């Protein structure tokens, strides 16, 4: 007896939106079994992971600090992914954004002016756009695969940061250690909740989520992006300018990632350091898909993903659970999401394989 997968005639729309919830639910159930096998009280472990980190106002603030770059980058990526433009290099674009905005902060490190912060954010966006423009021009001109070019440029970006922080951007009073000087107060993002690290970048990110939604749903460009993603031939037939859309989606996602980099250096970090992002650019790809490439979904998915990191800290501190559990959580989440996606679009067929004749 053979089991094969067959395409369902029509995927249930309700299920498409429910599948992230199913994935989260399955992850919870499976992880409780895992904790039980590890001789850990499953309920205490789940409590440490998902409740304890957000049981204080400071915890909620930290959650949103962590979620901000993930949401921002994923918003940018989701626009491109809908048009089948696969920008995998957000990590590099974030790094360039951090270099550009941090460079401004360091160039005017002793100047106290309200224009410094806006300039840093603008330069952060430009830095990310600049790094995303390279794959865009290569794709438009030479039809180069943007997955490869954007990914490879990530490593170039990280090495550029390494070069700068071991050289020109190094703190002159820092005993040659690879860190820049601390930014001036006027180069730091205002804090929303007194005493926490939650900065205004989170509110700007929510604002950008609304803008992204309007772009996708209300604007002709959003319509074109969706058509080109679902039916490239139809888009060509309708006379959509594909090159223009490549430029728009790559610059948009690069700019968002660059802004995320600017938020990190002017927010929670406050200086340029050799490692600015612990892989936000890659994790955001998971966030984008977990959020169904929809702005609201991305916001929720970003918060959920951030919670798995905070929960990982809390579980280590209060339960002495290993850090690897965090990775297992994220892996399970993605696995169950993909699995339920497959089952929504396909169904099991039991019996011998026959060539489809219809």
């Amino acid at each position, binding site marked *: 007896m053979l089991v094969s997968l067959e395409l369902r005639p029509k995927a249930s729309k309700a299920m498409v939106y429910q599948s992230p919830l199913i994935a989260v639910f399955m992850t919870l159930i499976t992880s409780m079994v895992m904790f039980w096998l590890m001789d850990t009280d499953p309920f205490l472990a789940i409590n440490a992971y998902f409740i304890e980190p957000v049981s*204080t106002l*400071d915890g909620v603030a*930290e959650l949103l*600090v*962590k979620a901000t770059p993930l949401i921002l980058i994923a918003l940018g990526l989701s626009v491109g992914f809908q048009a089948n433009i696969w920008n995998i290099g957000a990590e590099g674009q974030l790094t360039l954004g951090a270099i550009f905005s941090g460079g401004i902060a360091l160039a005017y490190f002793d100047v106290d002016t309200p224009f410094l912060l806006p300039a840093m954010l603008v330069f952060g966006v430009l830095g990310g756009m600049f790094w995303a423009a390279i794959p865009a021009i290569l794709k438009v001109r030479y039809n180069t695969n943007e997955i490869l070019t954007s990914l490879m440029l990530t490593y170039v970006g990280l*090495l550029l940061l*390494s*070069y700068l922080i*071991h*050289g020109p951007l*190094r703190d002159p009073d820092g*005993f*040659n*250690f*690879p*860190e820049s000087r*601390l930014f001036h107060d006027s180069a730091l993002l205002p804090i929303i909740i007194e005493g926490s*690290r939650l900065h205004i970048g989170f509110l700007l990110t929510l604002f950008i989520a609304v803008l992204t939604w309007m772009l996708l749903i209300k604007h002709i460009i959003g319509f074109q992006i969706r058509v080109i993603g679902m039916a490239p031939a139809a888009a060509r037939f309708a006379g959509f300018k594909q090159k223009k859309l490549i430029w728009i989606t790559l610059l948009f996602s690069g700019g968002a990632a660059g802004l995320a980099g600017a938020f*990190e250096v002017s*927010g*929670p*970090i*406050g*200086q340029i*350091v*050799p*490692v*600015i*992002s*612990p892989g936000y650019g890659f994790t955001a790809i998971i966030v984008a898909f977990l959020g169904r490439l929809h702005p609201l979904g991305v916001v929720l998915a970003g918060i959920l993903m951030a919670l798995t*990191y*905070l929960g990982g*800290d*809390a579980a*280590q*501190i*209060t339960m*002495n659970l*290993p*850090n690897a559990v965090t990775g297992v959580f994220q892996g399970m989440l993605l696995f169950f999401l993909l699995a339920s996606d497959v089952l929504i679009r396909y169904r099991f067929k039991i019996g011998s394989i026959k060539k489809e004749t219809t």
Partner: protein
Amino acid sequence: MSEFRKLTLLTLAMLASFLVGMFGVAHADPLKVGFVYVGPIGDHGWSYEHNQGRLSVEKEFGDKVKTTYVESVPEGADAQRVINQLAAKGHDLIFTTSFGYMNPTIQVAKKHPKVHFEHATGYKRSKNVATYSGRFYEGRHVAGLIAGKMTKTNIIGYVASFPIPEVIRGINAVAIAARSVNPDVKVKVVWVSSWFDPGKESTAANTLIDQGADIIMQHTDSPAPVQTAQKRGVWALGQASNMSSFGPKAHLTAIIDNWSPYYIARTKAVMDGTWKSGDTWGGFKSGMVEMAPYNSAIPADVVNLAETARKGIISGSVHAFTGPIKDQSGKIVIADGKVADDGMLAGMNFYVEGVEGKIPQ
């Protein structure tokens, strides 16, 4: 009679208060000690040794302490959150064990003035932030002497992480020591831009062996270079912990970071209320740096040379940076008969004669 009664009562009262006191001590909350690691505790290098130090604190004080660790904490925005959580969860003493935690530690310490912080390898201190590090260059000196004697090709390959003063200092200490017993020695360096990346470390070791190195040294945290040396049939010197199980034939010795005595002493100081901020830079003498057992393939006279140097460092008669020392251009940087002071060591940013290439910057 009434006098006797009074006395009995008094005795009883004293006994009771004594018992209550005992009871109170027995049930006093254990001192909570937190550790933040940059790598996984299974790296068999840097974070592994810090975790060994944590375990020895638990062993020393039993149920009088409760230790917690958080591993693989990135050195960016996350560090501050993790350190802050440890402080908020009632830890009295927190060790942050990587250079990149310096500013986050200072920031969190401001918010928690009653918590004691200890930051490894940094230079910023405050009333409740102390710093500590090892004089690993002392171990490098001994390793360099052995390498200089054991090499046939006169090329020492060095797998390095990041061009910070601590790493440069180690490279220089090796070059100076090796050339003191074998003036033809050259040190070739490959930078892997990571503290823990077994794949890259292994590739770097292979490259160095292809270029003629028959001794592989490392300032990275995984045992991959030792494994590569074993496979290729050349010598290796381990880093941070005894790595001989990863390449028993190749492993000449290793420089061991032994944090246990310091961690125990600082924990005790917090318990006794005598903790003070300061800077500790421990070497062979304080036991913070140790050598792993010497490989039996090392001739007796070389072992003798190494041990004499180690004892000399402890007694103060030997210093790894004793002039005349020239930089790559041949300029004298440490005059004849002088030794480098701690300020020069802390900010070292040049290669000495005998090291090939340039410091990336």
